[in-house]
């Protein structure tokens, strides 16, 4: 027989003004198992907690119920108190008589009855509570960063600086990401390469950071502190040890037919290439689809010219198994495909370009060596129209309902760069709204209007008609209602950002969720912005939602701090409210394994003595370190062989029974 102590909190007048405490105390005394009850004005205060502690010792309480505020508020407080008094903390239950009772009901009598009922349910549950002991697992003191853009670089540097090994996995041949493609950055107009390149070099030189470029994460298993990851290193066809990055092969390669990804297709590159001159690592890769040697077997020029013999046509993909304590996802974003925006002629007219293409066109290292000319005839434009929100804030099928966040600012930047280069060139910006929430952002945009004379037009462009060598832009000025027709030489589209196409696959691999737009979901939109629902996996940068560089970097450091928090521990404790299998009842149907969101349940064979005979049986087995305690498996289990500690079938049924009295 359990000895239950019940402690009823007044919460000042918060509870006591609506709930008649005396009546609750009186009713509690008659509840089965209750041997002690006490009310106090502030149970969570030190004095109140001492009441609990003292009573546990004095009255040999084996179970404790605190009727007070929400367990989300003070369950841990009281559990600590119980623990301090020598009682297993999980033998304590909370009855929520504030948020769920005194604060939502006016009728004192009804509220009092309900408080009694809720307390009774808590007592009924507590009697069935079992002492639980959180398990401990070791932590692999190494972090994995997936994605080598600015977010990934920053995260890796922060973690490495804290003294932990970091593996940075990048899909493309070089780290740097989207930021490497940018010319200048708002709102300071400092050169993107000038601030990024040193960080890339830092990362490559850091003795705690290992960069796996041209690699992908292929498989993730395990759990916080102990992730087991398979990294695929794609065959580069170059021996990274031997290559000096001299670049002769790049120049001599005869197959210069592929469109350069880095230059957004505005120029061609060789089959053997580094994406850009400052690439890290500065080791080329052979694009086997373009390479003549791989296509026809003939050529081999690069191998002939390589002074160190680094070219290796026989190289194969390699797989690397590594264990990590924490994972940070920094996979970044993409721009949407504009094929379905036919009215803007993007697919059909070379002088209609995206903002990212504009960045390359104005970049001194870009395809035009920084000379801003029309892609079609290489002439200097006289009139340039910028269109914002192409696909952003667009609820239709082809667009994205959200704001891409960065376009207002970079469009202002583009217009300023344009006017700076060619003061005689007119710049028009069509916008729905101009959003400049950020430090120095509003000032920056005003400068574009006031100092640079950029024409901002509130309204959308209906259609663009290529007429002769001009692009006739038809739009409406929404403020005046005037129909506008601008003969532009170039049109720059601020196309919407979107999650990487493979994001949902990555999410599935990592068991982290994605939202309806395939951006990864943070654990809480406000209070846990860099955590995911999967312990030990964190998010940074635009893979979680559209972001500019300062935000990305801030989040990257935040994610790093969270990861360091895990890595700095030698052991982690688990939530002990996990599922467990009664092997004697389990039929081995494994329905539970199919629904478990964490793949925490596996099968195993057991040998059981049944009526004197040894029977080998298949049963389910829960990995307590992986189980997060949702309890979904318990419902798939028809015979109830799998049950959730802390929320067992019997406990919940007891609560139902008690509530229905």
């Amino acid at each position, binding site marked *: 027989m359990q000895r239950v102590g019940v402690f009823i909190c007044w919460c000042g007048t918060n509870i006591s003004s609506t709930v008649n405490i005396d009546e609750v105390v009186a009713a509690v005394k008659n509840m089965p198992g209750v041997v002690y009850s006490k009310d106090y004005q502030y149970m969570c205060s030190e004095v109140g907690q001492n009441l609990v502690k003292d009573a546990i010792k004095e009255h040999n309480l084996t179970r404790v119920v605190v009727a007070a505020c*929400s367990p989300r508020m003070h369950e841990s407080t009281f559990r600590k108190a119980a623990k301090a008094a020598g009682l297993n903390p999980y033998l304590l239950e909370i009855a929520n008589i504030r948020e*769920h009772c005194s604060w*939502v*009901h006016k009728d004192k009598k009804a509220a009092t009855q309900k408080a009694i009922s809720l307390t009774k349910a808590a007592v009924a549950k507590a009697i069935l509570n079992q002492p639980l002991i959180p398990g401990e697992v070791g932590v692999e003191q190494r972090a994995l960063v997936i994605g080598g853009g600015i977010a990934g670089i920053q995260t890796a540097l922060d973690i490495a600086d804290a003294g932990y090994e970091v593996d940075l996995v990048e899909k493309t041949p070089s780290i740097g990401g989207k930021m490497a493609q940018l010319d200048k950055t708002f709102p300071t107009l400092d050169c993107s390469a000038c601030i990024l390149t040193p960080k890339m070099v830092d990362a490559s030189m850091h003795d705690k950071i290992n960069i796996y470029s041209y690699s992908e994460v292929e498989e993730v298993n395990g759990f916080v502190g102990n992730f087991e990851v398979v990294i695929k290193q794609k065959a580069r066809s170059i021996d990274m040890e031997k290559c000096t990055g001299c670049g002769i092969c790049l120049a001599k390669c005869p197959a210069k037919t592929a469109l350069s990804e880095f230059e957004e297709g505005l120029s061609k590159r060789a089959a053997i290439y580094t994406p850009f001159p400052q690439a890290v690592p500065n080791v080329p890769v052979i694009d086997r689809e373009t390479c003549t040697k791989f296509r026809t077997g003939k050529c081999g020029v690069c191998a002939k010219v390589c002074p160190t013999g680094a070219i290796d046509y026989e190289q194969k993909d390699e797989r690397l198994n590594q264990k990590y304590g924490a994972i940070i996802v920094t996979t970044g974003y993409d721009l949407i495909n504009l094929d379905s925006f036919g009215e803007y002629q993007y697919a059909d007219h070379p002088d209609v370009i995206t903002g990212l293409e504009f960045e390359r066109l104005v970049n001194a290292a870009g395809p035009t060596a920084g000379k801003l000319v029309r892609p079609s005839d290489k002439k200097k434009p006289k009139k340039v129209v910028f269109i914002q929100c192409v696909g952003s804030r667009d609820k239709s099928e082809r667009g994205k309902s959200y704001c891409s966040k960065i376009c207002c600012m970079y469009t202002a930047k583009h217009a300023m760069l344009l006017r700076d280069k060619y003061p005689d060139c007119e710049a028009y910006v069509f916008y729905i709204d101009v959003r400049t929430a950020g430090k120095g952002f509003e000032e920056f945009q005003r400068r574009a209007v006031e100092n640079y004379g950029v024409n901002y037009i509130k309204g959308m462009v209906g259609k663009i008609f290529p007429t002769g060598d001009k692009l006739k832009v038809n739009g409406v000025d929404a403020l005046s209602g005037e129909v506008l027709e601008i003969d532009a030489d170039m049109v720059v589209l601020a196309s919407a950002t979107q999650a990487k196409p493979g994001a949902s696959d990555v999410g599935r691999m990592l068991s982290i969720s994605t939202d309806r737009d395939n951006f990864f979901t943070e654990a809480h939109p406000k209070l846990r912005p860099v955590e995911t629902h999967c312990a030990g996996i964190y998010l940074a940068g635009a893979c979680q939602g559209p972001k500019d560089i300062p935000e990305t970097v801030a989040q990257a450091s935040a994610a790093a701090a969270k990861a360091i928090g895990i890595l700095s521990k030698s052991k982690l404790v688990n939530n002990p409210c996990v599922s467990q299998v009664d092997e004697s009842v389990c039929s081995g149907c494994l329905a539970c394994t199919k629904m478990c969101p*964490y793949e925490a349940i596996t099968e195993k064979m057991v040998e059981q003595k049944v009526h004197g005979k040894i029977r080998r049986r298949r049963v389910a087995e829960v990995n307590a370190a992986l189980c997060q305690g949702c309890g*979904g498996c318990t419902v798939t289990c028809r015979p109830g062989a799998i049950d959730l500690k802390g*929320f067992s079938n019997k406990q919940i049924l007891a609560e*139902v029974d008690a509530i229905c009295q």
Partner: protein
Amino acid sequence: MSVIANNAAVKNAQAFEPLIVAFCCNWCSYAGADLAGTSRLNYPANIKIIRVPCSCRVNANFVLRAFQRGADGVIIAGCHPGDCHYMTGNYYTRRRFSLLKNLLAYVGIEEARFKVDWISASEGNKFADVMNGVLEKVHKLGPNRKLRDSRWRR
């Protein structure tokens, strides 16, 4: 006459105090109920909440047990699909209880007596609305006798 009749009606209405058992997931709906409290919203005391980690923890047994023990209505509330703290738990809830709800209706349990809804941690208002809505309908239906164990005294 009419006054007396009215009084009797009022008395009857008062005599029926429905009991609604609500299973709320810890991360969204229970927190939503907490928010309803913090915001001092109002809903009747007839609704009593049982905390479960996830709506997918709710077993059909619990729902039927509540009816057996005299509940006049049962509610299951969880995170909105896609927002589950456990990623996918409530997708299973959705399937399980779509079928159970129809099955209960099929054997003659009035539909208004069993409600499943999605209430996020920020939807204190919705929590109160859903609770009030169910209660209002159950009140109209009157006490539930179906599935109820004749031996149980409430």
